[in-house]
């Protein structure tokens, strides 16, 4: 009796094994269906703790928490060379469905000024998630009450008005270029190493004006250490409804920083689609809107692969123009 039972169990097991194999074989799983089978590497070409890093860790955490992807996404920081080092590394992973990279406007502009072979458009566009804004700051006791005061002063003293910003050929520098063009003035742009140093220079009176993202100057603004003369956005910000735009004040200058994610060059479309879908879900969560967008006074804007590709192409064209005007593009 026991013997028979035993053989029955044995036969059943063999059958089960065969059935299992057959099942596996008949499905003929394509990489599309199985993707992602292993963790995805998210390269942040900036240091830990910076704006790109903060966004990356928030995205990864929300994906994990809500299981938007069946595999984890791992953040790897590859800082240096204004993003160039990380970009170069990812550029070598042609066709890799498991490597994505954070992209911000500085990575679009730096390759233009340094004439580097790897550009932001080298990568496969996945999605743009948010836009960051730019404030023009002055000290509260400054003689400048509005952009008009600045322009009048700059016209009377061409090239004498100093304006601080982060880096050369950067977002802040391009804002300066756009403002100069729109108002027909010439300012002396002085680059500093990071937003903290820029605001210090303004507070210490070493420069007369300075650029900052809303999140960079939120505390100084709240504490009355600085005042905002204008925002480069197309319309007033929800978080700062009292701050007039450049356009309102008669200067047609708009600039916003893109915060986006691209894939390795020639990343397969199925991977792009999967990740873009997950990112769209991320931007729709309450946590993203509250803890990321609101806290950093960003503008939420999801662009899918096609729209984002268009945005990058437009940005490259626009940036080349601005940077050429500033004399920063090598001929």
């Amino acid at each position, binding site marked *: 009796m026991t013997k028979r039972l035993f053989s029955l169990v044995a036969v059943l097991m063999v059958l089960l094994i065969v059935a299992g194999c057959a099942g596996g074989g008949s499905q003929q799983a394509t990489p599309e269906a199985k993707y992602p089978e292993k963790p995805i590497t998210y390269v942040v070409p900036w240091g830990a*703790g910076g704006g790109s890093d903060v966004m990356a860790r928030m995205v990864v955490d929300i994906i994990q928490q809500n299981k938007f992807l069946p595999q984890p996404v791992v953040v790897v920081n590859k800082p240096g060379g204004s993003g160039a080092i990380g970009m170069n590394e990812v550029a070598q992973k042609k066709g890799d469905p498991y490597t994505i990279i954070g992209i911000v406007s500085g990575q679009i502009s730096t390759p233009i000024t340094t004439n580097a072979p790897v550009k932001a458009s080298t990568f496969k566009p996945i999605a743009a998630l948010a836009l960051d804004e730019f404030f023009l700051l002055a000290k509260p006791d400054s003689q400048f009450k509005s952009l008009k005061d600045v322009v009048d002063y700059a016209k009377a003293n061409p090239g004498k008005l100093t304006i601080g910003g982060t880096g*050369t050929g950067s977002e802040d520098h391009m804002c300066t270029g756009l403002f100069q063009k729109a108002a027909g003035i010439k300012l002396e742009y002085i*680059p500093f190493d990071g937003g903290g140093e820029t605001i210090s220079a303004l507070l210490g009176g070493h420069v007369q004006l300075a650029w900052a993202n809303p999140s960079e100057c939120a505390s100084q603004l709240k504490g009355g250490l600085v005042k905002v003369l204008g925002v480069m956005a197309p319309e007033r910000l929800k978080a700062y409804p009292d701050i007039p735009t450049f356009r309102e004040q008669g200067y047609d200058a708009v600039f916003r920083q893109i915060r986006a994610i691209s894939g390795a060059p020639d990343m397969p479309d199925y991977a792009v689609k999967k990740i873009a879908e997950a990112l769209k879900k991320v931007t729709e969560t309450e946590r993203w809107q509250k803890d990321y967008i609101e806290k950093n006074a960003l503008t939420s804007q999801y662009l899918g692969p096609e729209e984002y590709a268009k945005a990058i192409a437009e940005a490259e064209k626009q940036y080349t123009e601005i940077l050429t005007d500033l004399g920063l593009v090598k001929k």
Partner: protein
Amino acid sequence: MEIWNYLLLGFGQALQPVNVLFAFLGGLMGVIVGALPGLGSVAGVALLLPLTFKMNPATAIIMLAALYYGNMFGGSISAILINIPGDSPGVMTALDGNQLAKQGRAGQALFMAFSASFCGGLIGIIILTLMGPLLAFFGLKFGPPEFASLIVLALTSIGWLLGDNPVKGVIAGAVGLLLATIGVDMIQGQPRFTFGLVNLSAGVPFIPFVIGLFGLSQVLLMQAHSEEFAGKENPYQKLSLSSSFPTPADWARSAWTIVRSAFLGFYIGLLPGSGATTAAFLSYIAEKRLNRNPERLGKGAIEGVAASEAANNAASIGAFAPLLSLGIPGSGTTAILLGGLMMWGLTPGPLLFKEEPQFVWGLIASMYVGNLLVAITCILAIPFLVYVLKVPRSVLAPIIVVICLLGAYSVNNSVFDLWVMIFAGLLGYFMNRFSFPIPALVLSLVLGPRLQTSIRQSFMMSHGSALIFLNRPISLSLLLIAFILTLLPALSAWQKKRRSAPAAEATR
């Protein structure tokens, strides 16, 4: 009196068991991160930050702050024991600390390093408590021209770091300045001397370079000239805590140094864009200037260890003054802390002291507690730490090589950095063999980029006039001191000559 009330309020917060525990844990993690070459406080705080979002903000910031100053303690351990600075603020500690270890005084060096760190930190916290917000505003007066003049003052002092052969010292310093020009130039945005290598666009990676220059080069020396190390095996026999206590003479020599370096370090820490590394370098130079026997420094003077350690800890505290009262990060690590504070919905800045006194004073009070706990733990660990020196050289050497490789790689996760480290190791080896002073090179490599940028920013501010360096009082006084200090050796030589001249005439 108001301050006392606030401080009491703060201690009420800081002495809650959970906060004491996390101050201790953070400090301990800081020590470990600091001791591991390549991992610094920036990476440590950045990695820990996301884990703290679920915690109570006060507890979280207490832990992260403890990690930052604990890091300053830890950096000295690997610097003294194996001559690999765990983090860049520890570079100057390695100079004298490792020499002391080679003389069999590792225990005392560590004891002094930890005590100096503690005292430096304590003085820093007291200054922060009493007049932090006020000083933060004063720090703003320091603009590009002042920085340029400060670095000129520091570089003219390199003369004292040169060693026996001044020409070699000048060469080493000049090579450092030239290496500092590599990378994308901040002002023009164009790459210089990168030879098309993307990895060089951010300049010579400093930590891998230093790890090679100090750590790898010493292994090469050990292997190539083993006869010089023969008989020096296990120089440190006694491993007890009491034998690690520095002698009264050591304390007497170091006491003033610690106080002076703490004040200097705190001040450097609150300046925009300069932190513990610059503080340690500058106070080491100051020590070299002001010490009665400057030639002892670099050859195992315990004051050298004290100067660097007191300064870097005080600077890490100083960086909190502009962070809390202006919302401006003074260093890379505090920049990340700022991000964390914003995530918790706390906006550092002028209003924070008024709106969240419990939080601010809790943090400040926790620094007293955390510093004490970390110092006690570190000192108690000394007998175990010096066991490293009992490891036979044949075993230690390959381990050091592995640590160098791991440390160099972990900074930027870059293979290129390994080559930099190995190159720097060879460079260090030859500099050592031909007695070129390594500190002169490191110093100008650290200060060089800032000097160039500050000078050019100043010229942009003044629209091309060099007078900007002279018509600003702080800058002018710094330049005057530099000028006098450069003339001093010539002046004293001239005076000596004049005094001996009549004497020579009299004998004629």
